[in-house]
């Protein structure tokens, strides 16, 4: 019997309980662990992306006015890439990893076996509602788990698209979508999960972590922060400007966890930087960016009001050097650059998550690292420079989830790099094999034999046994021989 947990039924504690039982039964009978099941589910996900590309793009357009190319590149293509990689590598990832054994357990052999954690919960975000729902689900399935996906209600068209297509294409006894908002999420969080994967903000991240603590459920929290960009003066300015622009406004109009949040550059260089940004912005979005089709809108009126409030302060609005135009009717804000806003203003103390780009200036570019480290650790940090020493210093001292030098945001597309935060920007990582690992338990297995039973292990304890144990634990071969032969 298939139960529907869409908006059609009230998702309460009783429904949740029944759902959990169904999922535990599905996991318990072993089918999600099989290679064949995982492959079939991954292939079904690919089919959804291939067969329904237009509907997905339409849903993203409805939810976010996302340009078609962004929808394709940042959501559909990345998701398909992950699916294909998982299909390609699954056998290899599932193979136990043999490890060497030390002399202390001789004779023995050992391996690490990846096994699914069981029944897992993925809570997704609204800004990349397709990708941030399915990328973790791909990880969960690849690792052999049963999974419940709770898409964000702030992107309702994508949420119901996911409920519809996952319901149609996937094995619904083990892969479920629960739509809803705070009440449904709270009910979900009361259940006992074997892992919870949450993408969103720090405030809700804490609520998720507290709920997980009740059941000792391990977590991945993909949060956000203020991702800074340090711009040195010796760079190819045009290329740097373009890469900053596309990382900021080309990523859902700044509503991305790894979008550049603010820039730090030197007082001497800032006029050139601002000019370059203005020039390239016009090339990309034209003279009337509010009506450019290549820019996403602000997701809803709440967030629009939030962003408007950041500019409400006179000390802030007076620092606008480019843009600032808004149209509440179509929920659009033009790319806006501000210069030297006060460091204690709201815009410099909250993740902006929108098309406003403050630039702070310093006397020497080296001072920027201390400024960054005095704030909460962000999800990403960027540096544009050609100086070897500065790059080395940046990599060594700036703590963030991920760093990119001479580019922005691109590291998210490299599946061989772990994607995750640290401190306030989160814990755990995924992408590529890291997704598989995030949803796996790495079970240690030691194979011993009956031969070679060292009497030194057992009482009665004697000084000779002590000598032997000392040598054994120190890996001291001669000592072992001496102890054995008196």
């Amino acid at each position: 019997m298939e139960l529907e947990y869409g908006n059609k039924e009230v998702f309460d504690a009783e429904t949740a309980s029944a759902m959990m039982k169904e999922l535990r039964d599905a996991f318990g009978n072993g089918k999600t662990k099989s290679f064949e099941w995982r492959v079939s589910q991954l292939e079904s996900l690919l089919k959804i992306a291939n067969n329904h590309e237009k509907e997905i793009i339409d849903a993203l357009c409805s939810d976010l006015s996302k340009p078609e190319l962004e929808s394709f590149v940042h959501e559909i293509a990345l998701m398909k890439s992950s699916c294909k990689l998982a299909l390609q590598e699954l056998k290899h990832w599932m193979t136990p990893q043999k490890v060497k054994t030390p002399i202390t357990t001789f004779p023995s052999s050992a391996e690490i076996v990846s096994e699914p954690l069981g029944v897992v919960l993925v809570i997704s975000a609204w800004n990349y509602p397709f990708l941030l729902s399915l990328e973790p689900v791909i990880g969960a399935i690849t690792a052999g788990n049963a999974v419940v996906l709770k898409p964000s209600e702030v992107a309702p068209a994508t949420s119901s698209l996911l409920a519809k297509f996952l319901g149609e294409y996937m094995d619904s006894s083990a892969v479920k979508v629960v739509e809803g908002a705070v009440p449904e999420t709270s009910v979900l969080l009361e259940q006992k999960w074997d892992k919870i994967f949450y993408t969103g903000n720090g405030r809700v991240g804490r609520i998720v972590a507290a709920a997980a603590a009740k059941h000792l459920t391990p977590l991945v929290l993909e949060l956000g922060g203020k991702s800074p960009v340090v711009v040195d003066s010796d760079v190819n300015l045009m290329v740097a400007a373009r890469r900053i622009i596309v990382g900021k406004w080309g990523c859902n109009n700044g509503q991305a966890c790894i979008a550049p949040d603010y820039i730090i550059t030197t007082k001497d260089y800032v006029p050139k930087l601002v000019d370059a940004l203005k020039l390239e912005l016009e090339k990309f979005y034209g003279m009337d960016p509010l009506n450019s089709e290549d820019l996403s809108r602000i997701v809803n009126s709440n967030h629009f009001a939030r962003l408007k409030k950041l500019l409400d302060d006179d000390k802030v609005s007076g620092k606008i050097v480019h843009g600032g135009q808004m149209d509440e009717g179509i929920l659009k804000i033009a790319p806006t650059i501000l210069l030297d806003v006060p460091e204690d203003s709201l815009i410099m103390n909250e993740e902006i998550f929108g098309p406003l780009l403050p630039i702070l200036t310093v006397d020497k570019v080296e001072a920027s690292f201390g400024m960054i480290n005095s704030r909460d650790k962000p999800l990403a940090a960027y540096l544009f420079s050609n100086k070897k020493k500065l790059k080395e210093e940046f990599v060594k001292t700036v703590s963030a989830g991920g760093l990119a030098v001479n580019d922005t945001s691109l590291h998210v597309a490299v599946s061989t790099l772990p994607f995750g935060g640290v401190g306030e920007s989160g814990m755990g990582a995924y992408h590529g094999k890291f997704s598989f690992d995030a949803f796996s338990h790495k079970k240690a297995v030691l194979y011993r034999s009956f031969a070679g039973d060292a009497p030194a292990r057992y009482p009665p304890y004697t000084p000779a046994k002590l000598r032997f144990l000392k040598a054994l634990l120190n890996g001291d071969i001669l000592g072992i021989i001496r102890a054995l032969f008196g």
Partner: protein
Amino acid sequence: MNEMVELGKSLAEVRETFRGGRTRGVAWRKTQLRAIIKFLTDNEDQIFKALEQDLGKHPVEAYRDEVGVVKKSANLALNCVEKWMAPKKGHIPLLFFPSKGEVLPEPFGVVLIFASWNFPISLSLDPLIGAISAGNTVVLKPSELAPACSSFLASALPSYLDPKAIKVIEGGTDIAEQLLQEKWDKIFFTGSPQVGRIVMSAAARHLTPVTLELGGKCPTILDSLSGSSDMEVAVKRIAGAKWGACSGQACIATDYVLVERKNAYILVDLLKKIIQRFYGENLKNLKNLSKIVSKHHFDRVRKLLEDPIVAASIVHGGSVDEENLTIEPTILLDPPLDAEIMTEEIFGPLLPIISLDNIQESIEVINSRPKPLAIYAFTKNEAFKKQILTQTSSGSVTFNDVMVHFVCDTLPFGGVGQSGFGRYHGKYSFDAFSNEKAILQRSFLIELEARYPPWNDFKMQFLRLAYSFNYIGLVLLYLGLKRTSR
């Protein structure tokens, strides 16, 4: 109040030390690791004395499970820390040429370690070694239930280790609660699931990542073994892993044994003989056996025998010496599966033997309980081994032995489900206290125009090909030989 002020000052100091940066250099880390080795060598006798006082541990057991283990870990870390600190290369797809990707481990910052009382030296110092090799500053809170060890660590460590970077704070629940109010960059906890929940809830408020090394009922499966010498080796190992490990007060001790009915009596007989040989005939002349750590735990373990049906199942031992907090090695045959002794982690010298019609049933018994830290299985049946591996879940599995995986540094040591999450030992200790920072280095050469708006069909086609890593297609597109799809 004074205590709180002292605590505040200590915390401020370790935070300041981390900010100052000296713990990040390899020289500082190696100095601390050498100091730990020296601490152990210089103070071996005092450590044995403290362990004898707190737990009645014999020096051989103390060396094997505590001093030797820590020395081994410190030596390994000393030899490998430089290698572990080095960045790991990540392969970058050709599409992003020229680029360099790597993952660089960095310390979390200021970490808190809670140690348990049963291995008060190794469960304090092993995680400490991990934290130090990863470059963190540390506050260590040893368990107040092992007061001699706790005060020895508090008084002696500061003269060996950097006192501004590594602090030992003694105390009970109230100190622990105060520590948990603070914001840490990582918490490492060894102890019970109940307290694990409290620690994780406190950590949730600050989004602090945690490692929880908890416990559970570690079952030992004893299959029919053809040779009588194999049987003897198996039973010796089981006995050693129960009573030889702090009198059963170990998270990885054999909690209960599963055996086929036809082998139950041989097992009991052999166990009796071995107990006599290793530990003595009766309560009056017990030797080589640790005592129960406290009156509270003594009462807890004794209470497990109070149930008359449970008491009736005792086939050996059962006597207790309240004055000396000693309980003699006790064997029970088939106590009820729903009695407390079979639902709670015993953590004491009582060994229930559960007899089954068929050894295969052991899998069901194990799966009906929370996932344990370890599963042990004595069997030569390769198919049965595979069954155990794939049909049960636990932190680890050891075949044909017990507990020795603890000294196998190449295997991760940690739990799953109720037995915890996260892992350590060997390089895993270093990893447990590190943030793996992703780094992408790009160059200004070679620009991919298709990354930038304004969007058009050509760029769409380019990106479609790019995402499939269809390099030939890309070349053709550039040469104008591939038509755009729309």
